[in-house]
């Protein structure tokens, strides 16, 4: 399917925080309570629409385990957006955010949009990290922040789409060099030479599910 832009995303965070479940919910609209540990990296993709333009999100879901860290680091490069995920019911996953962020900043391009996600918001009774703490961390480090639930699908669409909106805005502002694919943005065949018209950001309606 033709698209105006392709944005490459990467999902990072500790093991078990729900990265793969977020991807599955976004691409397939389903939740799998028991999920195999991710090895290396898995790919997912979905088309969305922003400002009337078809945008393909190519999402790289990485392994959270420390033993894979050296592998996953190599995937930061060339990502336009990152979802940095922690589990609101596990304080340690929040405490590790700084390390993840340092890794991401060190190995990615400086303009990469990072969305901080506090996942498992449906487990309110087991919450160990307050929403305000997530907001404060995001504010301090210049990130966007949302709490999500891959189980109930709460805010999952918004997390992916809002990140895309931010990237799209940066394209409009000329922050991203869209001709440099190292920035994680690829111009689609339908866009051709008439790319990068102005136009505001009028929301990101989903354009059908499916994958690839």
């Amino acid at each position, binding site marked *: 399917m033709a698209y105006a832009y392709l944005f490459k995303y990467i999902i990072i965070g500790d093991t078990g925080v729900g990265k793969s479940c977020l991807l599955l919910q976004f691409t397939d609209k389903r939740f799998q309570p028991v999920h195999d540990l991710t*090895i290396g990296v*898995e790919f997912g993709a979905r088309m969305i629409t922003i400002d009337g333009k078809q945008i393909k999100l190519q999402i790289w879901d990485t392994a959270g385990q420390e033993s894979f860290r050296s592998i996953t680091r190599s995937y930061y490069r060339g990502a336009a957006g990152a979802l940095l995920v922690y589990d609101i019911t596990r304080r340690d996953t929040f405490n590790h955010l700084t390390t993840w962020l340092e890794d991401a900043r060190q190995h990615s391009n400086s303009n990469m949009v990072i969305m901080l996600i506090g996942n498992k918001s449906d487990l309110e009774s087991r919450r160990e990290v307050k929403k305000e703490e997530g907001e404060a961390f995001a504010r301090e480090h210049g990130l966007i922040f949302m709490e999500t639930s891959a189980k109930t699908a709460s805010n999952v669409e918004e997390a992916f789409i809002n990140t895309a909106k931010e990237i799209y805005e940066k394209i409009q502002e000329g922050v991203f060099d869209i001709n440099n694919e190292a920035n994680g943005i690829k111009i689609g065949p339908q866009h051709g030479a008439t790319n990068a018209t102005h136009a505001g950001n009028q929301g990101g309606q989903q354009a059908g599910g499916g994958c690839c």
Partner: protein
Amino acid sequence: MRKTKGLSPVVREPGPGVKLGVEDGLLCQLIHSPEFNLFSGSAVFESNFIQVPLGSRGSCVTKSGTRVDICGRPAAMILGVTSSVPSLPLPNVLLMANVTWPHGHCSTCNKPGAVPVITLNRLRIFTEKIYYLRLHEKHPEAVFQFWIRLVKILQHGLSITTKDPRIQFTHCLVPKRPSSSPEATPESSFPSSSQPSETLMLLAAEQTSGSFSELSGRAQFTADRSITPTIDIADSNSCDSVPSLVASQVHLNIPMRAALSHSLWEQEDPDEHRMQAPVASSLGQNFLGP
């Protein structure tokens, strides 16, 4: 200057590997596409498999033992190996992709009482999850032998440590076995034994692979999965828990034909199975032998 045997020109006709569906297949096309642009320049050896339920949880299984997806179609998977860098001596990346086949492509998969699995790969990944993969029926048996050959190569390495056809080798890192014909090609210098001729095997395979390209052209990826180095793979012989499904057809000493392996494993030494090769990839160290 004498041309090194076994090396192929940069521009060439599609080789038998393409016809067999193990080269330039769907997975190769996907990862080399502009969208992914992964491992460009590296060859990809790939095949289609049907996932069978042994050891997998939550399977939906037909009477023939084939795992099916929620739509009742066989759970198909493409397995491929490639290198992160083209000049690496051995593959170091395993790729797995779920595929949706069109209805009706697999005439026997869902047929009750179908013939039991005769060739089975047991793939154990880092997390201990085990996949049992049956080679897709459209592949000829030779392709399974190539996978077995790959396992052996990854376990024991090769005598020649590059697969990049652009690199011209003028010497071999291990002593050559004396040959009656100094001009012998890699194929003809393989030891003649009770094993089937590689060329004959490949020719037979080519004759039975006519429908493969059609199948490849109609398949669609439902999700793309790439899994990197820490993987175990084994043929069915090493799986003690499922002996009833296994009829071993493993020929351990069948070398790949140079024409097929031109960009994968170059000019392997016929005695490699007897020698300690200098290099084995990290991927190979985790492979289980037959």
